[in-house]
Protein backbone atom coordinates (compact mmCIF):
# COMPACT_ATOMS: atom_id res chain seq x y z
CA UNK A 1 0.00 0.00 0.00
CA UNK A 2 2.12 2.84 -1.29
CA UNK A 3 1.14 5.89 -3.27
CA UNK A 4 3.32 6.31 -6.35
CA UNK A 5 4.70 9.43 -7.96
CA UNK A 6 2.32 11.52 -9.99
CA UNK A 7 -0.90 10.16 -8.49
CA UNK A 8 -1.52 12.97 -6.06
CA UNK A 9 -2.01 16.61 -6.97
CA UNK A 10 0.86 18.92 -6.04
CA UNK A 11 -1.09 20.67 -3.30
CA UNK A 12 -1.83 17.37 -1.54
CA UNK A 13 1.80 16.23 -1.84
CA UNK A 14 3.09 19.50 -0.41
CA UNK A 15 0.48 19.49 2.35
CA UNK A 16 1.38 15.91 3.20
CA UNK A 17 5.05 16.87 3.42
CA UNK A 18 4.31 19.87 5.64
CA UNK A 19 2.14 17.91 8.07
CA UNK A 20 4.46 14.94 8.20
CA UNK A 21 7.55 17.09 8.80
CA UNK A 22 5.73 18.77 11.69
CA UNK A 23 4.67 15.40 13.09
CA UNK A 24 8.16 13.99 12.66
CA UNK A 25 9.61 16.93 14.58
CA UNK A 26 7.05 16.44 17.34
CA UNK A 27 7.81 12.75 17.35
CA UNK A 28 11.56 13.32 17.47
CA UNK A 29 11.21 15.71 20.41
CA UNK A 30 9.45 13.00 22.38
CA UNK A 31 12.22 10.50 21.80
CA UNK A 32 14.60 10.02 24.67
CA UNK A 33 18.09 8.70 24.21
CA UNK A 34 17.20 5.60 26.21
CA UNK A 35 14.60 4.68 23.61
CA UNK A 36 16.90 4.99 20.62
CA UNK A 37 17.91 1.32 20.32
CA UNK A 38 14.30 0.21 20.53
CA UNK A 39 13.25 2.75 17.90
CA UNK A 40 16.06 1.55 15.65
CA UNK A 41 15.00 -2.07 15.95
CA UNK A 42 11.34 -1.29 15.27
CA UNK A 43 12.32 0.87 12.30
CA UNK A 44 14.38 -1.98 10.85
CA UNK A 45 11.52 -4.41 11.37
CA UNK A 46 9.08 -2.05 9.69
CA UNK A 47 11.51 -1.52 6.82
CA UNK A 48 11.99 -5.23 6.19
CA UNK A 49 8.37 -6.26 6.78
CA UNK A 50 7.34 -4.74 3.45
CA UNK A 51 9.31 -7.50 1.73
CA UNK A 52 7.29 -10.27 3.35
CA UNK A 53 4.82 -11.05 0.61
CA UNK A 54 1.59 -12.89 1.26
CA UNK A 55 0.42 -14.65 -1.90
CA UNK A 56 -3.28 -14.06 -2.59
CA UNK A 57 -4.26 -15.93 -5.70
CA UNK A 58 -3.07 -13.96 -8.70
CA UNK A 59 -1.80 -10.99 -6.72
CA UNK A 60 0.04 -10.58 -3.45
CA UNK A 61 0.09 -8.13 -0.61
CA UNK A 62 2.83 -7.41 1.84
CA UNK A 63 2.96 -6.80 5.55
CA UNK A 64 2.74 -3.19 6.69
CA UNK A 65 3.05 -3.30 10.49
CA UNK A 66 1.97 0.26 11.37
CA UNK A 67 -0.12 -1.10 14.25
CA UNK A 68 2.73 -3.06 15.79
CA UNK A 69 5.13 -0.12 15.44
CA UNK A 70 2.58 2.16 17.10
CA UNK A 71 1.95 -0.28 19.93
CA UNK A 72 5.67 -0.65 20.61
CA UNK A 73 6.71 2.97 20.21
CA UNK A 74 3.69 5.18 20.84
CA UNK A 75 4.08 8.68 19.39
CA UNK A 76 7.70 7.99 18.49
CA UNK A 77 6.44 5.54 15.85
CA UNK A 78 5.97 8.39 13.42
CA UNK A 79 9.68 9.01 13.02
CA UNK A 80 10.36 5.28 12.73
CA UNK A 81 7.78 4.94 9.97
CA UNK A 82 8.93 8.08 8.19
CA UNK A 83 12.53 6.85 8.10
CA UNK A 84 11.48 3.34 7.12
CA UNK A 85 9.39 4.66 4.25
CA UNK A 86 12.17 6.97 3.06
CA UNK A 87 14.58 4.06 2.84
CA UNK A 88 12.00 1.80 1.21
CA UNK A 89 11.42 4.52 -1.33
CA UNK A 90 15.13 4.98 -2.05
CA UNK A 91 16.21 1.34 -2.02
CA UNK A 92 13.13 -0.66 -3.02
CA UNK A 93 11.41 1.91 -5.27
CA UNK A 94 8.22 1.52 -3.22
CA UNK A 95 6.11 4.62 -3.53
CA UNK A 96 7.56 7.84 -4.83
CA UNK A 97 9.68 10.59 -3.31
CA UNK A 98 7.07 13.24 -4.08
CA UNK A 99 4.37 11.17 -2.37
CA UNK A 100 6.57 10.41 0.65
CA UNK A 101 4.80 12.93 2.88
CA UNK A 102 1.40 11.45 2.09
CA UNK A 103 2.73 7.92 2.53
CA UNK A 104 4.22 8.82 5.90
CA UNK A 105 0.89 10.26 7.02
CA UNK A 106 -0.97 7.25 5.67
CA UNK A 107 1.10 4.88 7.82
CA UNK A 108 2.15 7.17 10.66
CA UNK A 109 -1.22 8.48 11.78
CA UNK A 110 -2.67 4.96 12.17
CA UNK A 111 0.48 4.03 14.08
CA UNK A 112 0.06 6.88 16.56
CA UNK A 113 -3.64 6.07 16.93
CA UNK A 114 -2.85 2.41 17.49
CA UNK A 115 -0.29 3.34 20.10
CA UNK A 116 -2.99 5.13 22.07
CA UNK A 117 -5.44 2.30 21.45
CA UNK A 118 -2.95 -0.25 22.69
CA UNK A 119 -2.11 1.70 25.83
CA UNK A 120 -5.82 2.11 26.54
CA UNK A 121 -6.69 -1.54 26.02
CA UNK A 122 -3.77 -3.34 27.56
CA UNK A 123 -4.36 -4.59 31.04
CA UNK A 124 -2.04 -6.45 33.28
CA UNK A 125 -2.54 -9.95 32.00
CA UNK A 126 -0.89 -11.76 29.15
CA UNK A 127 -4.20 -12.36 27.40
CA UNK A 128 -5.27 -8.74 27.49
CA UNK A 129 -1.92 -7.67 26.12
CA UNK A 130 -2.25 -10.12 23.25
CA UNK A 131 -5.80 -9.00 22.52
CA UNK A 132 -4.79 -5.35 22.61
CA UNK A 133 -1.90 -6.15 20.28
CA UNK A 134 -4.21 -7.92 17.84
CA UNK A 135 -6.62 -4.98 17.93
CA UNK A 136 -3.77 -2.52 17.31
CA UNK A 137 -2.31 -4.57 14.46
CA UNK A 138 -5.63 -5.04 12.69
CA UNK A 139 -6.81 -1.46 13.23
CA UNK A 140 -3.52 -0.04 11.98
CA UNK A 141 -3.77 -1.71 8.60
CA UNK A 142 -7.48 -0.99 8.24
CA UNK A 143 -6.92 2.69 9.05
CA UNK A 144 -4.06 2.82 6.56
CA UNK A 145 -6.43 1.53 3.86
CA UNK A 146 -8.95 4.24 4.76
CA UNK A 147 -6.23 6.91 4.63
CA UNK A 148 -5.12 5.58 1.25
CA UNK A 149 -8.66 5.99 -0.03
CA UNK A 150 -8.77 9.47 1.44
CA UNK A 151 -5.55 10.54 -0.31
CA UNK A 152 -6.62 9.04 -3.61
CA UNK A 153 -9.97 10.78 -3.24
CA UNK A 154 -8.00 14.04 -3.00
CA UNK A 155 -6.50 13.08 -6.35
CA UNK A 156 -9.93 12.84 -7.91
CA UNK A 157 -10.85 9.20 -7.31
CA UNK A 158 -14.11 8.00 -5.85
CA UNK A 159 -13.53 7.63 -2.09
CA UNK A 160 -15.87 4.74 -1.38
CA UNK A 161 -14.84 2.81 -4.47
CA UNK A 162 -11.14 2.99 -3.60
CA UNK A 163 -11.83 2.35 0.07
CA UNK A 164 -13.78 -0.79 -0.78
CA UNK A 165 -11.04 -2.10 -3.10
CA UNK A 166 -8.26 -1.29 -0.63
CA UNK A 167 -10.14 -2.93 2.23
CA UNK A 168 -10.97 -6.03 0.19
CA UNK A 169 -7.36 -6.39 -0.92
CA UNK A 170 -6.11 -6.04 2.63
CA UNK A 171 -8.53 -8.21 4.58
CA UNK A 172 -6.02 -11.12 4.70
CA UNK A 173 -3.24 -8.69 5.61
CA UNK A 174 -5.39 -7.27 8.41
CA UNK A 175 -6.00 -10.75 9.80
CA UNK A 176 -2.35 -11.76 9.51
CA UNK A 177 -1.11 -8.53 11.05
CA UNK A 178 -3.49 -8.94 13.94
CA UNK A 179 -2.11 -12.42 14.55
CA UNK A 180 1.52 -11.31 14.22
CA UNK A 181 1.02 -8.34 16.53
CA UNK A 182 -0.78 -10.47 19.11
CA UNK A 183 2.01 -13.05 19.03
CA UNK A 184 4.80 -10.45 19.18
CA UNK A 185 3.26 -8.48 22.00
CA UNK A 186 2.37 -11.59 23.95
CA UNK A 187 5.94 -12.78 23.59
CA UNK A 188 7.38 -9.41 24.62
CA UNK A 189 5.03 -9.28 27.62
CA UNK A 190 6.49 -12.55 28.84
CA UNK A 191 10.10 -11.80 28.02
CA UNK A 192 10.58 -8.07 28.40
CA UNK A 193 7.42 -6.29 29.59
CA UNK A 194 9.17 -2.95 30.03
CA UNK A 195 9.39 -2.69 26.24
CA UNK A 196 5.62 -2.29 26.16
CA UNK A 197 5.56 0.89 28.20
CA UNK A 198 5.16 4.08 26.20
CA UNK A 199 8.73 4.98 26.88
CA UNK A 200 7.80 7.98 28.96
CA UNK A 201 9.03 6.06 31.95
CA UNK A 202 12.70 5.24 31.85
CA UNK A 203 13.29 1.60 32.74
CA UNK A 204 14.63 0.96 36.18
CA UNK A 205 18.22 -0.07 36.33
CA UNK A 206 18.68 -3.52 37.65
CA UNK A 207 21.69 -4.27 39.72
CA UNK A 208 23.27 -7.49 38.75
CA UNK A 209 25.01 -9.09 41.65
Amino acid at each position, binding site marked *: MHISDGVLPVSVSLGGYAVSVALAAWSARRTT*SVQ*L*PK*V*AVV*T*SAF*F*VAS*LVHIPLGPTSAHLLLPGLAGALLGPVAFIAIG*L*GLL*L*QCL*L*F*QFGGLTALGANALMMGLPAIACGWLFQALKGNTHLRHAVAGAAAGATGTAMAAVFLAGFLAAGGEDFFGVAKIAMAAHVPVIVIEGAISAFTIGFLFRVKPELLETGLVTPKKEIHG
Partner: protein
Amino acid sequence: MMRTSAIIFVLLVLLAAAPGPTCAQSPGETDCKAVTELLEKQNRQLSAELRKVRREIAALGARMDEPGIREVFAGIGYILGLFGAAALVAARRKG
Protein backbone atom coordinates in the same frame (compact mmCIF):
# COMPACT_ATOMS: atom_id res chain seq x y z
CA MET B 1 63.19 -37.57 -38.68
CA MET B 2 62.93 -38.58 -42.29
CA ARG B 3 60.68 -41.44 -41.37
CA THR B 4 58.19 -39.36 -39.41
CA SER B 5 57.93 -36.75 -42.17
CA ALA B 6 57.41 -39.55 -44.68
CA ILE B 7 54.63 -40.99 -42.55
CA ILE B 8 52.98 -37.59 -42.27
CA PHE B 9 53.25 -37.12 -46.03
CA VAL B 10 51.61 -40.46 -46.66
CA LEU B 11 48.83 -39.65 -44.23
CA LEU B 12 48.21 -36.33 -45.93
CA VAL B 13 48.05 -37.98 -49.31
CA LEU B 14 45.59 -40.54 -47.99
CA LEU B 15 43.46 -37.76 -46.50
CA ALA B 16 43.39 -35.88 -49.76
CA ALA B 17 42.46 -39.00 -51.62
CA ALA B 18 39.63 -39.82 -49.20
CA PRO B 19 36.23 -39.53 -50.81
CA GLY B 20 34.58 -36.14 -50.25
CA PRO B 21 30.96 -35.68 -49.19
CA THR B 22 28.82 -37.58 -51.58
CA CYS B 23 26.66 -35.09 -53.33
CA ALA B 24 23.46 -36.33 -54.80
CA GLN B 25 23.65 -35.51 -58.39
CA SER B 26 19.94 -34.75 -58.59
CA PRO B 27 18.28 -32.29 -60.90
CA GLY B 28 18.27 -28.64 -59.72
CA GLU B 29 14.58 -28.50 -58.81
CA THR B 30 14.56 -31.16 -56.06
CA ASP B 31 17.79 -29.74 -54.70
CA CYS B 32 16.19 -26.30 -54.35
CA LYS B 33 13.15 -27.77 -52.58
CA ALA B 34 15.30 -29.64 -50.10
CA VAL B 35 17.30 -26.51 -49.30
CA THR B 36 14.12 -24.49 -48.78
CA GLU B 37 12.72 -27.14 -46.48
CA LEU B 38 15.91 -27.23 -44.48
CA LEU B 39 15.96 -23.46 -44.19
CA GLU B 40 12.33 -23.34 -43.06
CA LYS B 41 12.98 -25.98 -40.43
CA GLN B 42 15.98 -24.08 -39.13
CA ASN B 43 13.96 -20.88 -39.12
CA ARG B 44 11.22 -22.46 -37.01
CA GLN B 45 13.76 -23.82 -34.57
CA LEU B 46 15.49 -20.47 -34.31
CA SER B 47 12.31 -18.50 -33.71
CA ALA B 48 11.20 -20.95 -31.03
CA GLU B 49 14.54 -20.54 -29.34
CA LEU B 50 14.38 -16.77 -29.66
CA ARG B 51 10.97 -16.75 -28.01
CA LYS B 52 12.37 -18.74 -25.13
CA VAL B 53 15.27 -16.33 -24.72
CA ARG B 54 12.92 -13.34 -24.82
CA ARG B 55 10.80 -14.89 -22.09
CA GLU B 56 13.86 -15.51 -20.00
CA ILE B 57 15.02 -11.91 -20.43
CA ALA B 58 11.59 -10.62 -19.36
CA ALA B 59 11.63 -12.86 -16.29
CA LEU B 60 15.12 -11.65 -15.45
CA GLY B 61 14.03 -8.03 -15.79
CA ALA B 62 11.10 -8.64 -13.47
CA ARG B 63 13.36 -10.33 -10.97
CA MET B 64 15.87 -7.49 -11.11
CA ASP B 65 13.15 -5.01 -10.16
CA GLU B 66 12.52 -6.60 -6.82
CA PRO B 67 14.91 -5.69 -4.06
CA GLY B 68 17.46 -8.26 -3.07
CA ILE B 69 19.36 -9.07 0.05
CA ARG B 70 21.84 -6.29 -0.68
CA GLU B 71 19.17 -3.57 -0.49
CA VAL B 72 17.78 -5.06 2.71
CA PHE B 73 21.11 -4.98 4.47
CA ALA B 74 21.88 -1.53 3.10
CA GLY B 75 18.64 -0.25 4.59
CA ILE B 76 19.19 -1.87 7.96
CA GLY B 77 22.70 -0.46 7.97
CA TYR B 78 21.39 3.02 7.26
CA ILE B 79 18.82 2.76 10.05
CA LEU B 80 21.29 1.51 12.62
CA GLY B 81 23.85 4.08 11.53
CA LEU B 82 21.42 6.99 11.73
CA PHE B 83 20.18 5.94 15.15
CA GLY B 84 23.77 5.42 16.26
CA ALA B 85 24.57 8.97 15.20
CA ALA B 86 21.50 10.21 17.03
CA ALA B 87 22.58 8.33 20.15
CA LEU B 88 26.05 9.85 19.85
CA VAL B 89 24.62 13.38 19.64
CA ALA B 90 22.29 12.70 22.56
CA ALA B 91 25.12 11.34 24.67
CA ARG B 92 27.36 14.32 23.84
CA ARG B 93 24.61 16.76 24.75
CA LYS B 94 23.99 15.02 28.02
CA GLY B 95 27.65 14.82 28.95
